């Protein structure tokens, strides 16, 4: 009872603090002499933290008088998954969202754009208003702290899928960190529209926050893919499920935004970059709405509740708000400054083949991909509303529709590093591309002539080789000369560029892994009796025994297998099939023998201990390990580009505490 009151009080105080802070920041934006509402801003973050801690306490102390614990807690849930229960259902995950937003609000408060202070108050007002909305949403549409009467003895525990893999503690928080991080570029987009200022300071603060949110989102998506691969037992890592798409959409537009900011520094793409920053957050809210309102059917829609309509109103208000501001104030923004590197005397063909055109192309292609995924995701819902017929948009559609766009992105990545900022005549560009093109043709030809690959694998391998060769040449050009010491100096000097090149290389490697693994032969399945042997997809499995175990709330069957592949023993593995009768769910946890170039993936589909037979599915998946490595490389490159520059001691002595400093210092002049 007291815990219920405490939690609700935290939420109420948080909502009040957020409203007060919003009012204060609006006042400060109108009149610079007003004091910034620092205490109220800190208070909302503290309230969010306190609410999360209260719910964690209720979960850990098994206080079933609290509704969330009664519905999603359980006595038999281990400590780790009790902690992660906070975000295993809707109401708790909204609290996690609030906690992240609180952290972001504090960080944004402490790191204003130094050279353009007028952008800060309106941006803070947008962030605190967003926090106020989410406090209200938790309070009125799904308060997890409601008291339950009578108090139940035990709860059902979280959804079985959400307590079967340690990634539960990493994947949702990373995604949420990405989502709330991308709220800041949106806030600064509104601030730019309100104040009419988009300068270098605007681009810098938006870039830093976008990189932060983008990196978290990338890591979250990668961990989610790995989790899906390691637990769900269907052998894949991406199913074009609506919820997966919802996380991909802001990732795509944020990627486009990062590139458009690059072009912006050389003049241009100002209003466009601003629109991308705002649209990214709209897509974050749209994704939250789609996945949490039950509008779309999905494997991730774990809980449904009444938060759909308020979220949709919020989505409409923010989206219409920024579009209307853009319409009314868009032309007050500083237009693109003249590009100092642009040679206006050059003919149109040279101007077309410039780095800037490459970035515009990147933005067009990524926006096209995002538009395709968006339409594909909402299409079944819209079709159902319009004509009442049920339509499915499955992986086959996305693979077909996105293949040409993905190839174009790869091709653009291949020639991107060769393009010069001012542009150059086609002949000169072609001559510089010839060595890489020859290498690409050789690689593609060899891939086609060896093994039995399809045309898509051949083309993608060739393009990826092209990308890798131009990237490596670009890296070498920056690192060459000066020996090891000189190279180290060059790394420090060109850190951002090198980081971007590493990230691009990772994308090319990932493209190869995706296409090659996608062309793998399908899994093979067969019923195997105890003490007998079967060979499926070239893998020989011997069923040593079957065990079934019935424990509280679950029935598990495990097959003990001895596995041999290509004359080599892979040892003993035990894939498991678990039935959770209370949840009506079956989880087939696969046994995976992981290798760099191929995984042996064995799933137990059905087990009959009485008859002593097991239905096994075996597949050999190529290059999945390489895909995870590529994700890691992508994050390494991002970290290299985003890491704050070491702040030199001499310049900061004295006012280290007084002056607020930008979140991530710039390296480039």
């Amino acid at each position, binding site marked *: 009872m007291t815990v219920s009151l405490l939690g609700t009080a935290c939420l109420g105080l948080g909502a009040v603090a957020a409203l007060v802070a919003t009012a204060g920041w609006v006042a400060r934006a109108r009149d610079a002499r007003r004091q910034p509402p620092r205490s109220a801003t800190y208070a909302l973050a503290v309230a969010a933290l306190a609410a999360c801690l209260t719910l964690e306490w209720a979960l850990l102390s098994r206080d079933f008088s609290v509704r969330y614990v009664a519905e999603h807690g359980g006595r038999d849930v281990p400590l780790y998954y009790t902690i992660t229960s906070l975000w295993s259902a809707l109401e708790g995950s909204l609290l996690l969202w609030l906690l992240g937003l609180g952290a972001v609000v504090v960080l944004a408060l402490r790191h204003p754009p130094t050279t*353009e202070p007028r952008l800060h108050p309106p941006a803070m007002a947008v962030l605190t208003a967003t926090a106020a909305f989410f406090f209200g949403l938790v309070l009125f549409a799904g308060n997890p702290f409601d008291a339950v009467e009578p108090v139940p*003895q*035990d709860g059902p525990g979280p959804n079985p899928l959400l307590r079967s893999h340690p990634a539960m503690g990493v994947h949702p928080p990373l995604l949420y960190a990405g989502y709330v991080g991308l709220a800041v570029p949106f806030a600064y987009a509104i601030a730019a529209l309100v104040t009419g*200022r988009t*300068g270098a*300071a*605007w681009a810098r603060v938006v870039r830093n926050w976008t990189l932060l949110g983008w990196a978290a989102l990338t890591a979250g998506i990668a961990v989610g893919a790995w989790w899906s691969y390691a637990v769900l037992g269907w052998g894949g890592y991406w*199913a074009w*499920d609506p919820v997966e798409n919802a996380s991909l959409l802001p990732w795509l537009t944020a990627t486009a935004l990062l590139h458009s900011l690059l072009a912006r520094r050389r003049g241009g793409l100002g209003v466009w970059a601003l629109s991308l920053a705002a649209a990214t957050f709209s897509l974050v809210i749209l994704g939250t709405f789609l996945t949490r309102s*039950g*509008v779309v*059917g999905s*494997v991730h829609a774990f809980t449904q509740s009444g938060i*759909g*309509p308020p979220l*949709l109103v919020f989505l*409409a208000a923010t*989206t219409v708000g920024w*579009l209307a501001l*853009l*319409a*009314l104030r868009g*032309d*007050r*923004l*500083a*237009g693109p400054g003249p590009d100092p590197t642009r040679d206006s005397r050059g003919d149109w063909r040279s101007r077309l083949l410039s780095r800037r055109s490459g970035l515009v192309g990147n933005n*067009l*292609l990524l*926006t*096209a*991909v995002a*538009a*395709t995924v968006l339409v594909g995701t909402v*299409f079944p819902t819209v*079709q159902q*509303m319009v*004509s*009442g*017929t*049920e339509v*499915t*948009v*499955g*992986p*086959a559609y996305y693979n077909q*529709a*996105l293949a040409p*766009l993905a190839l*174009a992105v790869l091709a653009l990545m291949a020639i991107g590093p060769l393009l010069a900022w001012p542009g150059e005549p086609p002949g000169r560009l072609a001559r510089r591309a*010839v060595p890489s*093109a*020859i290498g*690409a*043709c050789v690689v593609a*030809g060899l891939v*086609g002539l060896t093994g039995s690959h399809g*045309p898509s694998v*051949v083309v993608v391998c060739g393009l990826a080789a092209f990308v890798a060769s131009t990237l490596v040449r670009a890296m070498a050009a920056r690192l060459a000369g000066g020996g090891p010491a000189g190279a180290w100096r060059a790394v420090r000097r060109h850190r951002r560029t090198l980081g971007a090149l590493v990230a691009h290389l990772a994308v090319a490697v990932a493209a190869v892994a995706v296409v090659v693994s996608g062309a793998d032969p399908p899994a093979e399945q067969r019923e195997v009796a105890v003490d007998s042997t079967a060979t499926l997809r070239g893998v020989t499995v011997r069923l040593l025994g079957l065990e079934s175990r019935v424990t509280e709330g679950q029935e598990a069957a495990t097959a003990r297998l001895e596995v041999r592949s290509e004359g080599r023993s892979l040892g003993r593995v035990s894939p498991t099939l678990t039935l959770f009768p209370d949840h009506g769910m079956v989880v087939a946890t696969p046994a995976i023998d992981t290798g760099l170039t191929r995984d042996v993936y064995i799933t137990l*589909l059905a087990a009959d201990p009485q008859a002593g037979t097991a239905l096994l599915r075996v597949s050999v998946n190529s290059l999945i390990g390489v895909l995870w490595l590529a994700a890691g490389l992508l994050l390494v490159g991002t970290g290299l580009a985003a890491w704050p520059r070491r702040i030199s001691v001499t310049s900061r002595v004295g006012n280290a505490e007084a002056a607020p400093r930008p979140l991530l210092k710039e390296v480039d002049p």
Partner: protein
Amino acid sequence: MAGGLRRTPVALRRAVPGLLAIAALLLFAAGLTRAVLVGSGPTDEDARVRAIAATVRCPECIGESAADSQAPTARGIRETIREQVRAGREPDEIRRWFVDRYGPGILLEPPARGLGLLLWWLPVAFVPLALAALAVTRWARRRTAGSAVRDTARAPESSAVQPGRPARGALVLAAAVAVALTVGIVMAGRGTGDRPAGPAAATTGDTELDVLSAAARSAPDEVGPWLSLGRALEHRGRLAEAAQAYERAVRLDPKDSPAAFRLAFAYARSGQAERARPLLQEILARDARHTEALLLLGMLQHEAGQPEASETLRRFLEVAAEHPAAAAVRRLLEGDR
């Protein structure tokens, strides 16, 4: 070696990169040709069935194709496809056969008709249309920039604040989005209300039921499809029909306790307690510690005023003291005393 190269004619040395490029292109062409030939070779029946099943949705699952799923309906679909492939029908004909029976939602690919056209044309047309729009706006801007004051373009970054005409295009876009979202809100508000009432909900239900009952009829000797059909009917409150489906399942495998319990539960919910009780006693004869059967039987006996009720419920409490319903049962027993 270097001397030898220096002595080669200049023309030949110039031709080296070109020759290399031609050789590389030939290698690429050979590799691609082989890849295309490998891909288009004859395929066996399994591969063809799989290719078709991969484009058909498993109606019982979320986001899984009939090729991947282990659900009874998916197995039924695979068998149907195999029969039709053996009968020499084309993949498109087979897909149409499923669409005729289950509606377009059975295919994982959206149809290229009506609204679906947007889905297929958008990825193709997006980039050309955007490029055209970009070219038109640049052309328009250059024309106005030629005559009017060079306004914002020359101003230093981050300072130019000039009141001006609102961008009408963006305003129209904002209005359009506002209208679309309002419609969406209204629709979503209707959708989240009483689900079974809406016509859309009714059609969804029918499609799923059609598929499930077709699956059950196509494999009448399998328990799984009948159970799935029964559960779907029960979910929709059609208890009498659900009981019939469960009866089929129990007749196929009288020892299947889950099926028998579902049947007993459906009987109990549709007011046929007298049929539910013997069934529950059978289940308990096989498994005396079947918690849910003890609870249901005890409650039914209690309602009928039978004296065995307290004994059954006490056994339930022994087996499942921590059960969510245990507290209520205890109160019930105390009230009786």
